């Protein structure tokens, strides 16, 4: 336990710093904002207990919120995403044996698996952000547009980051 999680702890802080210092200032086309910090939730080991998954996601989102004065918004989206994660893993095909020390990632699970897994979870995350932020259905076209582009941009960043750091982990 002590040894298994230190990489995740480091990732937690590095991703928050990256998100609030750099990515929150990237506004493609004005209102499309990539949320790479969810990479942390995607990469948590399969055997992470449920309470730890939810709590760490909550504090991850809350930390990002504190820097953008959007208190609660990213926290709500991250917790929702963490809640869906076990379900998505079951649907996307869990690894045959949990004993095998497999990690959710391209190296262990293959590109197709990781792509689908990330796509569904990132979309769920962006959906909550778009809905809670607008708080009204008047702007449904805007919400849809933002959802699609932010999801694609975040997914692209997640896949690129995963490819860059894949070799190190093997």
């Amino acid at each position: 336990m002590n040894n298994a999680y230190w990489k995740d702890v480091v990732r937690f802080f590095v991703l928050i710093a990256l998100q609030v210092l750099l990515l929150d200032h990237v506004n493609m086309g004005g209102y499309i904002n990539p949320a790479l910090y969810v990479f942390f939730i995607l990469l948590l080991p399969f055997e992470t207990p449920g309470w730890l998954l939810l709590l760490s996601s909550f504090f991850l989102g809350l930390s990002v919120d504190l820097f953008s004065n959007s208190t609660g918004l990213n926290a709500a989206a991250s917790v929702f995403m963490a809640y869906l994660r076990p379900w998505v893993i079951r649907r996307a095909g869990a690894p045959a044996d949990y004993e095998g020390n497999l990690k959710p990632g391209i190296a262990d699970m293959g590109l197709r698996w990781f792509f689908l897994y990330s796509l569904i979870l990132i979309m769920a995350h962006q959906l909550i952000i778009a809905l809670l932020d607008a708080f009204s259905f008047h702007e449904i076209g805007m919400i849809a547009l933002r959802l699609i582009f932010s999801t694609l941009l975040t997914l692209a960043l997640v896949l690129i980051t995963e490819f860059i750091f894949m070799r190190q982990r093997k």
Partner: protein
Amino acid sequence: MRYILAFIWRYRFFFLFILLELISVVLIVNKSYYQRSVITGATDGFTGRIYTTWSEITSYFRLKSENERLASENARLWQKITPGQLTTDTANLRVKDTLYGQQYTFTVAKVISNSTTLRNNYIMLNKGKRHGIVRDMAVFNSDGIVGTVVSVTDNFSWVMSILNQHTRLSARINRLNQMGTIVWKGGSPAIGTLLDIPAHVKIKRGDTISTSGYSHIFPEGIMAGTVEKIYVESGDHFYTIDFRFSADLNSLQYVYIVKNLLRDEQDELSKNVVNE
């Protein structure tokens, strides 16, 4: 009781999820300024320090454009002061009179955090209570309006950007002197909307919009933007006018905070009217 506890324990993953979501939603919905300032007051020493350091590093990359903007602003201000103007009136007498007193003072501040992607955007400035900043002060830069101060701590202040669904600013179309209200409908951070202009006036694309000075917050005549699209929503007697903000909210660096010295007097007066 034991069964209830066993039940909760069995679905603890679900209940923890609900609990955390509830906390988040309470934080979102609690938009009252008091709550907000309590939360930011507790965190902003930390976040403020990080942002100050970071903006000191990144501001170097924008020095050139910032200098050009300042130079052009200086040129504009030079034109306004006396040596730049041809004096036709020889009896230019200055009387030291309370009638010519100053109404607004300006404090320069640096933007240390900003967002434009959300529906409700806020900006953090590096000036706070210690520099005499209080709630409801106007914020603009040399290009145009930026927002209004909504909460202040000792060293920092949060500004509600005009890119916010609570934005309502009194403004007018300069050529016609017609009064309207500026709101932001979301979407592009470059486009705002002007409402309440009656549908019989003749507005053209390219007309300039500036603040009216009726709100006790913004001084009169600060540029807001230029008209882009004019239409009437069905069943409405007023125009909906989409205009392009003159300030680029996405690349803010230095802004001015406006203090209205006669604010209390103006508020007092309007309170008296309401009470009658």
